[in-house]
């Protein structure tokens, strides 16, 4: 009995070790590109901020302002430049940009993750059906996908928000609706090529059902391009979300800590006077927060694409 248990656990350990070695090799190739590595580090930094930032900072963007004014530091309603108390300065109404930007990291990244992952799951599901089964079902799926892809995504999202309600939840839904078709298309293409490989036929010859073949062989071998696409899309979702807030469509309460929204506060309240000339930090800092993350995500995506391309793995 013990011998059996031992052998079972050592077998497991061996399987895990093999998979870990394979991962370590991939990681080595990834880190050989300094740019991709920097991208990865920055992304990890953002993730840390998103997870721990709000916990450490606590409170809301006004707490600091209120505290300071209570203790006699008079706080104007007009934006204050970066200072000891407000490292990123304040925007209108004494809103602490540092606090807002840090909290926004959590909301933005969470929304992007939900959107991209849901899109990828739906896309993988539909794409593998369309690719493996083909036929009428596949044709219908692809035509619907094409229709969605042909509508500009921003327009679709705005329509969604206007028709339903202008809340964060609806916006997440709208973004999911925008994002699944890309994945469907990629997965289908990938499945079409994997389907022709001999190990798939071997699995069919062994009597495997379609579902089993797709789950065991096709999806695991089509998934890498999806990873790459996910990391590239992450930034796009954040940009789109920021754009929606900035346009005022995603209006989910004035003070929602969201990067696009913080910019939008500056431009809305400055009523006519261009915020960027008088109070550059109210616009530049949240914009930089977006820009740096999006660029890093792209660098990371490129790095991922390179390591998953066997031709580049030397």
């Amino acid at each position, binding site marked *: 009995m013990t011998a059996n248990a031992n052998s079972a656990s050592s077998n497991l350990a061996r399987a895990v070790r093999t998979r870990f070695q394979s991962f370590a*090799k991939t990681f*080595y*190739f990834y880190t050989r590109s300094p740019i991709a590595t920097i991208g990865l580090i920055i992304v990890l930094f953002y993730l840390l901020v998103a997870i721990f930032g709000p916990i450490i900072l606590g409170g809301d963007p006004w707490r600091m302002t209120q505290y300071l004014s209570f203790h006699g530091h008079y706080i104007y309603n007009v934006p204050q430049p970066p200072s000891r108390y407000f490292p990123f300065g304040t925007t209108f109404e004494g809103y602490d940009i540092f606090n807002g930007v840090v909290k926004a990291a959590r909301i933005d990244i969470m929304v992007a993750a939900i959107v991209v992952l849901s899109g990828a799951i739906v896309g993988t599901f539909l794409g593998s059906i369309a690719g493996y089964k083909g036929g009428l079902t596949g044709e219908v799926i692809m035509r619907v996908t094409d229709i969605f892809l042909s509508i500009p995504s921003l327009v679709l999202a705005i329509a969604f928000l206007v028709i339903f309600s202008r809340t964060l939840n609806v916006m997440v839904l709208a973004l999911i609706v925008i994002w699944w078709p890309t994945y469907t298309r990629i997965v289908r293409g990938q499945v079409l090529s994997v389907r022709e490989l001999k190990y798939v036929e071997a699995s069919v010859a062994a009597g495997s059902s379609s579902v089993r073949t797709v789950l065991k062989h096709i999806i695991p071998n089509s998934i890498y391009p999806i990873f790459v696409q996910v990391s590239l899309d992450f930034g796009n979702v954040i940009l789109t979300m920021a754009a929606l807030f900035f346009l005022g469509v995603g209006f989910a309460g004035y003070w929602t800590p969201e990067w696009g929204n913080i910019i939008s506060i500056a431009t809305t309240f400055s009523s006519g006077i261009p915020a960027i000339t008088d109070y550059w930090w109210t616009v530049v800092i949240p914009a930089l927060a977006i820009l740096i993350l999006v660029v890093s995500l792209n660098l990371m995506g490129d790095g991922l694409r390179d390591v998953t391309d066997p031709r580049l*793995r*030397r």
Partner: protein
Amino acid sequence: MEDVLVVKNLKTQFFIYEGVVKALEDVSFSVGKGEVLGIVGETGCGKSVTAYSITRLIPDPPGRVVGGEVRLGNLDLMRNIKDEARFVQKKRIKIKHNYRVIRNNELFFNTIRGKYISMIFQEPMAALNPVYTVEDQIAETLLLHNRTRLLKIMKSASGHLSELEKWRDGGEIEIFDDELGEEIDKIKKTARGVESIRFHQDLLIEGANGFSKKMQKYEEMLKKSIEHDELEDRLLTDPNPTTQQEIIKRLAKESKKVNLIKMSKQMKRNKKDPLLIEGRRESFSLLESVDIPNPRGVLKSYPHELSGGMLQRVTISIALANNPKVLIADEPTTALDVTVQAQILKLLRDLQDAIGTSIILITHDLGVIAETCNRVAVMYAGNIVEMAEVKELFRNPKHPYTIGLLQSIPRVDDPNKTLKTIPGNVPNLINPPQGCRFHPRCPFVFDRCRVEKPVSIEVSKGHTVECHLFSGKVNAE
């Protein structure tokens, strides 16, 4: 026999994640003039790496030729290989390239490749550009390396215009004592049918006309081209390394000036360019010489429109366009059916008889070797383990590996043969076996094999073996 190409102690390695692949340990051989040398061995034994090392086509990174000599005439092609890169030992070995040296060597090798050494590959598509027609591609190599000859033919033709015209109108033509004469002789021999001769005649005359119109320009071009050729030939004949170095510098400077890609593009635009017209005629003639049916159709087609056998004929014609000293054929028939393989091998033999190029034929098929080669080198795990005349090797194989290989081939002509196997697998070349690399699979292995690498020993004239079994005998004698 005069040796055209001598390879000595060639050593090539690949620096990859898992470690250093010692792909070639110590490869030495030579190719005589007009000889067909076969290199045979199992997958991964280093046949292609040998070919690529000689032509300097090893992808870098990860691969590098780390030592050895390749002599073409008096020139050592690997003469400054050590200057190209340094190796830094860290957790993994890192290569620090010296890109200035590499760039200059690259310029120099562009001269060597295609002109003195040509190569054909297992996948003919690898050697062809999918977006150009066959004609463009043949013409391009001709313009790169064979300008002198083309210009000479045209010059002579422009001097003999009236005779050529008479010939076209049905008269006989005397054979001149120059390039044009040779060419006409060849046309008469190889051209298939009146149509084809007509095509040659028309293009010859058109080219000659173009030549006489801009006589001065082309004379000038010819002069330069001859100078250039002489320089290149001196490179191979001059025994003095410092002079060689100077010539290489001059050639490099020149090839920086003459932008060949731009030139061939310009020519393609100007369809009336006489050099291009002559190039087209020559391409046609080349395709005829490799027995392509409907050569005019093939000239106008793109690579993907042709079958594997046809493509291989096209690449052979390109490789032989400049009468190279050595043709390296890396598994030229492996991807083809036996019936097409028979066609291609026959073609190679016929061409070799006709033009006398030395051929290095790489294959894993001992049948192909037996039918095509004069001499064979058997490779195993980055070493040449046995080398002999073909008949001698098959009649009297010495190395245990060669014997095993011969015994494992199924024969169509021998129903009773029982297949013997060589146990085990080809070794991993990152951690190759110590001593004789064949020892884990060798039925005759003894202690010495595990520690000491055998050296090459001549067992009879022209028959060398790398195996300890024979070193003992020689010592005793």
